[in-house]
């Protein structure tokens, strides 16, 4: 006699289980299928193509009415199960109770809704079922409809891509630093973002949602904690799912994060099974469909009293965000004994990274070209020994077994009309011709053909063509690369950042073909500076890429304490300021109070956890950080000038203060020091500063390029000026030119040696238009730079970073 089988939930997992069951146990069961949704099994994964308009709902139905009819499955769709009575073996639905012999719970999961203020407004929806999909589709009919998606994971991006395909204006708000951080590393996340933005989807990362604003009970905008408000007519939250365990829990089954099941998919009650996203198996819960299909097969076997075991496998994600080619599998964290193989093809937007552990492949992330994904996934799952194919592994299965590729052979094989330099459309034959005509250095080839003269990424290729054509006569130029992560020089990278509009560190590393996944301690601070300099107001400073002094806004001392130096504008202070400094020195038990060589006072030996407090005290007395640690403006020393000195020709103190007030806060390639002396006796030592002013009767002599540190260098005279305003404009222009052109850590005099005084004179003195433009760019950047780091860092969200994470000494003393 057939037994009663009740299945709760007509989803992906139960649908598959029923198919297995009906293959050879059709006569054994009276099946009743409950589903809260008013419909039967459909392919939930395909909701995205429905949303984007590529498919209709009818096309994604997996089991239609005829199928249930044919197999004698009783459908109770649109009916929620309210209770399971295990003692009486009864399931209570909204329309009545029914007894079971075996019960399968397949209730899937519930979308998680962040309980932000306003989350219960009309128009705030998850993305889980057909109703949600239809809500998004309906937006299409509203003119100028706008949607916000919270969550930059798989689901959120599919929602965004789908709505965008229908012409809806979409913004994705993601709390992490890059999209899909669980499946992708930063580089792949960058490419994905670029592709989505290319389609007109707005993407905000590191964005914290604060509140959902409404009008008349209906969603109106999303407010971020930085004050940004994004207007919207619909807000989709796609931030995660929680196994739907309510029924099981109420029935007293063992439940953790999900419903506990054993290897046979049986719950703590032997007559009840569970499959799908609602289960927890050996501590794991599930969110992708592949393992659910395995569970479905095992559950069918178990019902048929045949032994079967579910084993969770290493998962690969072949992601289907419409139109983006992504793949990720295994574990791609770095580690001891682990090695990265990175391949980037900036021109085609391809990024591939393999992570090896010993002889094995343990992880793979790919973007732009994922055809080999399945092959790599196989290598990971089978734990294949890949040591024999290391060199060519990243090129995929097509390259295995052959001889390792010789890069020169590849270039030799290129046809004469193959394009080498994309920017200037230079083909191989033109380069060869130029070389035959006598161009025997890279710069000669560049000058004659323009090849590699723009973005420079093809420099390597051009060199290879030269090596092939010139044979042994060719000597590759020995340029100093920026760091071991790249063959490019600092200047190459700066040029690329500007010409290609690269605005994030991930963008630079991808488009310039970095050989590491996240850079090193020497390139990251340099890139951070270049980006900050070139994209003021757009690029967000990365604290973690700064050397400790700049991250902490304090000089670290040899014993790990810090020094605190408030600004004294132009070396001028007051009795009140001195009193506040003295009070701070007492209160924080400062070890040493010293007058610096820069005309101000250094409080040495302050403990890290005291920094925010001492800063707050000094702020309260009107003082700001002296930035004695910064690759930026340090001091503007002055002498007493006409105010007091019998030789003074101009107000050197006043001008020094004006200069310091105009220039403070600017980040520069290396530190910048200035001085203004009231007469050629030069008591402020202007002639050994990066920028120095020596006042004379007729005006101001502007000096540049001095230093008195590791090397002592006298300045050179740039020009003589009539007014203070002119001094300020010329100073801003020269500093800006230096900011834009120098390599990171290159002090002004070294840059001057490289570019020549003539170049600077031309850009800053002779060409007034160029000077004005430079000064304008400088002051534009200052709008974003001139915030006192002390004031910023005494705010609570920063403050905690200065305190220990935990203190086990206190606990131990209890």
């Amino acid at each position, binding site marked *: 006699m057939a037994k009663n089988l009740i299945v709760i939930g007509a989803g992906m997992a139960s649908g598959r289980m029923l198919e297995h069951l009906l293959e050879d146990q059709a006569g054994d069961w009276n099946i009743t299928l409950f589903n809260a949704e008013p419909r039967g099994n459909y392919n939930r994964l395909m909701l995205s193509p429905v949303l984007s308009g590529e498919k209709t709902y009818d096309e994604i139905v997996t089991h239609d009415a005829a199928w249930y009819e044919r197999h004698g499955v009783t459908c109770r769709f649109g009916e929620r199960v309210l209770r399971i009575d295990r003692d009486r073996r009864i399931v209570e639905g909204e329309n009545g109770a029914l007894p079971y012999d075996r019960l399968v719970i397949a209730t899937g999961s519930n979308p998680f809704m962040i309980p932000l203020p306003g989350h219960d407004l009309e128009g705030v929806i998850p993305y889980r079922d057909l109703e949600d999909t239809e809500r998004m589709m309906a937006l299409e009919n509203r003119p100028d409809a706008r949607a916000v998606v919270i969550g930059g994971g798989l689901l959120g991006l599919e929602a965004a891509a789908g709505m965008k395909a229908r012409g809806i204006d979409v913004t994705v708000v993601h709390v992490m630093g890059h999209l899909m951080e669980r499946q992708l590393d930063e580089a792949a996340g960058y490419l994905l973002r670029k592709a989505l933005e290319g389609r007109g989807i707005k993407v905000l990362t590191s964005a914290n949602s604060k509140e959902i604003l409404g009008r008349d009970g209906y969603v109106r905008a999303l407010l971020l904690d930085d004050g940004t408000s994004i207007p919207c007519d619909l807000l989709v939250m796609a931030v995660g799912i929680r196994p739907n365990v309510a029924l099981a829990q109420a029935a007293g089954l063992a439940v953790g994060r999900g419903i506990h099941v054993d290897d046979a998919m049986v719950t703590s009650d032997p007559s009840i099974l569970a499959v799908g996203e609602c289960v927890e198996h050996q501590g794991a819960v599930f969110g992708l469909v592949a393992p659910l299909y395995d569970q479905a097969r095992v559950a069918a076997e178990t019902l048929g009293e045949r032994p079967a075991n579910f084993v969770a496998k290493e998962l690969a994600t072949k992601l289907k965000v419409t139109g983006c080619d992504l793949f990720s599998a295994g574990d791609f964290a770095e580690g001891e004994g682990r090695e990265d193989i990175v391949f980037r093809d900036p021109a085609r937007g391809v990024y591939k990274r393999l992570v090896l552990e010993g002889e094995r492949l343990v992880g793979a992330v790919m973007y732009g070209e994922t055809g080999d994904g399945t092959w790599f996934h196989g290598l990971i799952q089978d734990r294949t020994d890949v040591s024999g194919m290391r060199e060519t592994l990243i090129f995929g299965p097509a390259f295995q077994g052959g001889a390792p590729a010789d890069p020169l052979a590849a270039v030799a094989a290129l046809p004469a009309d193959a394009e080498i330099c994309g920017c200037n459309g230079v083909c191989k034959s033109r380069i060869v011709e130029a070389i035959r005509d006598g161009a025997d250095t890279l710069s000669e080839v560049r000058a004659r053909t323009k090849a590699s003269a723009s973005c420079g990424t093809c420099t390597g290729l051009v060199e290879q063509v030269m090596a092939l054509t010139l044979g042994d006569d060719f000597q590759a130029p020995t340029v100093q690369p920026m760091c071991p992560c790249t063959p490019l020089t600092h200047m190459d990278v700066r040029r690329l950042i500007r010409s290609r509009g690269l605005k994030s560190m991930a963008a630079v590393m991808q488009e310039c073909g970095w050989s590491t996944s996240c850079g090193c301690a020497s390139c990251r601070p340099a890139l951070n500076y270049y980006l900050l300099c070139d994209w003021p107001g757009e690029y967000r400073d990365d604290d973690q890429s700064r050397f400790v002094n700049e991250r902490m806004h304090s000089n670290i001392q040899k014993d790990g304490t810090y020094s605190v130096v408030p600004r004294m504008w132009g070396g001028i202070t007051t009795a009140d300021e001195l009193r506040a400094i003295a009070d701070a020195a007492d209160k924080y038990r400062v070890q040493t109070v010293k007058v610096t060589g820069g005309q101000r006072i250094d409080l040495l030996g302050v403990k890290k956890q005291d920094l925010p407090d001492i800063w707050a005290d000094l702020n309260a007395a009107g003082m700001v950080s002296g930035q004695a640690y910064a690759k930026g403006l340090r001091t503007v020393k002055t002498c007493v000038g006409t105010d007091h000195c019998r030789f003074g020709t101009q107000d050197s103190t006043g001008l020094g203060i004006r200069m310091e007030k105009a220039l403070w806060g600017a980040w520069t390639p290396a530190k910048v020091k200035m001085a203004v002396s009231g007469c050629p006796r030069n008591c402020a030592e202007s002639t050994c500063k990066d920028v120095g002013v020596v006042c004379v009767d007729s005006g101001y002599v502007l000096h540049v390029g001095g230093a008195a540190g590791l090397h002592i260098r006298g300045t050179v005279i740039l020009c003589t000026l009539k007014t203070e305003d002119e001094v300020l404009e010329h100073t801003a222009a020269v500093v800006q030119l230096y900011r834009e052109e120098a390599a990171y850590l290159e002090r002004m005099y070294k840059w001057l040696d490289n570019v020549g005084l003539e170049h600077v004179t031309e850009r800053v003195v002779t060409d007034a238009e160029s000077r004005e433009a430079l000064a304008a760019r400088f002051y534009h950047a200052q709008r974003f730079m001139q915030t006192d780091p002390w004031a910023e860092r005494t705010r609570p969200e920063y403050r905690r970073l200065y305190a220990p*994470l935990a203190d086990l000494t206190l606990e131990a003393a209890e």
Partner: protein
Amino acid sequence: MTDWTDIGALEDIPRRGARVVRTRLGCIAVFRTVDDEVFAVDDACPHKGGPLSEGIVHGRAVTCPLHNLVLRLDTGKAQGADEGAVATHPIVVEGGRILLDASGLRRGRVA
């Protein structure tokens, strides 16, 4: 015997950053990498005691802020040609909380 002690949330440490845990036996630097892995090592460089928690974190390594020694966070060993090592401590993340094995660190506890 291990003594897993909750020292805070993963989110309390910035990515590619570190925070310090004070113990009777000196400070321990707890690092969070870009991939959200967490490591704990003594916060004193084998060279001249530099505070490693203030170094720049790249991959699974940190560069000492005082004189640029590069140490691996997982083994505590100096990278490349350099010599020296720093003690590492067992640490795990569970449900967003960071647990440090404090068993070796409570010596000196007042009974």
